[in-house]
């Protein structure tokens, strides 16, 4: 059962925090991309194409992170039953889909000059593509279920099930197509490549954290308008966020 004691939407005491994060993230991304594009030397084998990595690898890290965070939100939403976890889950799923989709596009752009094909069935890229569709399915599920409590439970459950699939898909694609490259992390690339990778990683992290905060507020507002019964004169029910029929009668607190 969902705990409806907390308000669905409360005005944040620091409403500008996400915008500040978005600002910091954008600045970091501009600096990191500048270094990656113009300052860092061309790589020995890959030449200038290597520069795609400075945006591709940070996207990959953040996509992975956001989907893991979505899994954690799903678990919390299921066991804590607080609406705020459902709102955060909604935002994490959407941001995760956007980042994973971007990752696939970057991967295709990287594969073309490197292997001559747009898509090479690399296990990591293929797993990401499968996850885009898995989480798109969950977004569709959220759209098709009107009752908010049921929607929260079902999407949390579906997120958990989809997340468990990530390693299985990875292993199966890896066996299926044994061609794969080295894991890209700052340790496997030389010293001069670290800086833009790190700056861009934090840039995307800040940017997307800010976006996720706003997206969660949007989800909270939408949920609130769904949960709110026809408004009483004092507008108090907007703050209580009870599912109609489950809590004390709205507006007429005995």
């Amino acid at each position, binding site marked *: 059962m969902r705990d409806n004691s907390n308000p669905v939407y409360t005005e944040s005491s620091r409403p500008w925090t996400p915008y500040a994060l978005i600002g910091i993230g954008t600045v970091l991304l501009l600096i990191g991309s500048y270094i990656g594009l113009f300052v860092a030397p061309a790589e020995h084998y890959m030449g200038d194409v290597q520069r795609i990595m400075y945006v591709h690898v940070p996207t990959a890290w953040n996509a992975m992170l956001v989907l893991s965070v979505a899994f954690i939100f799903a678990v919390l939403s299921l066991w804590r039953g607080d609406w705020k976890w459902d709102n955060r889950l909604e935002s994490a799923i959407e941001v995760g889909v956007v980042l994973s989709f971007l990752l696939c596009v970057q991967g295709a752009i990287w594969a073309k000059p490197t292997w001559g094909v747009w898509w090479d069935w690399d296990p990591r890229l293929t797993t990401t593509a499968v996850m885009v569709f898995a989480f798109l399915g*969950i977004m569709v*599920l959220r759209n098709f279920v009107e009752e908010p409590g*049921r929607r929260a439970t079902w999407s949390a459950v579906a997120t958990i099930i989809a997340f468990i699939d990530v390693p*299985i898909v990875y292993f199966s694609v890896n066996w299926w197509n044994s061609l794969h490259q080295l894991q890209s992390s700052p340790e496997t690339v030389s010293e001069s490549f670290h800086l833009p990778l790190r700056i861009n990683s934090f840039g995307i992290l800040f940017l997307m954290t800010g976006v996720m905060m706003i997206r969660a507020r949007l989800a909270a507002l939408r949920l609130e308008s769904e949960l709110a019964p026809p408004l009483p004169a004092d507008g108090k029910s907007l703050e209580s966020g009870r599912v109609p029929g489950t809590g004390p009668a709205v507006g007429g607190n005995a």
Partner: protein
Amino acid sequence: MQLMAALRKEFLLMWRTRAQFLAVFVFGATSLLLFSFAIGPNAAALRLHSSGFIWLALLLSSTLSLSESFHVEIEQRAYEGLLLLPTSPRVFFYAKALANWSQLSILGIALIPIMVVLYDAGTDRVLALIGIILLGAAGLSAPGTFYAAMAAQARSKQTLLPLLLFPLVVPVLLAAVKSTSLLIIGDPMNQIRSWVTLLISFNAIYWAVCGLLFGRVLED
């Protein structure tokens, strides 16, 4: 004990809807026929891809039979009655999933002769092939039953089930297609074992997880 009773109910339901099962089989057979038109009358290419075709046919038919298995419950409002029974939703899930598993397995085994005739894709290891069908069908039916229960209660159920199910069963599809094709084309390196291990692990994980979480799907 409760599981046996629930299973009896499921198999009775299956027997009563056997006309529906026949329709799903015809659908699967038709898609096998259509796949051959996509590749053209090239016998060698058809044989090479036959394992992919039979699993795609089974996957497509599974969405029909899975959603149908909950359609009856929802339409007759029978499942509301089931919720009132003092049984755990887990029993309900495993009975449903086992019924769907046997239905999909029969379907898959029934599609084998059609595959052999159309694509000249015979194998000496018939028992192994049936084993792969059983494992693959199990992999489809645990998450399939789970999501069919959700989709049956949501808007536009027909679209929702494949959207949720297809990305999830990519490992099942990969492993089942690979091992089937190894049986048909030949398996000099004995690679089939790793694929069977993958299928078994997928089944172990999802039969457990879906059973654990199914209570949440019903209670809300």
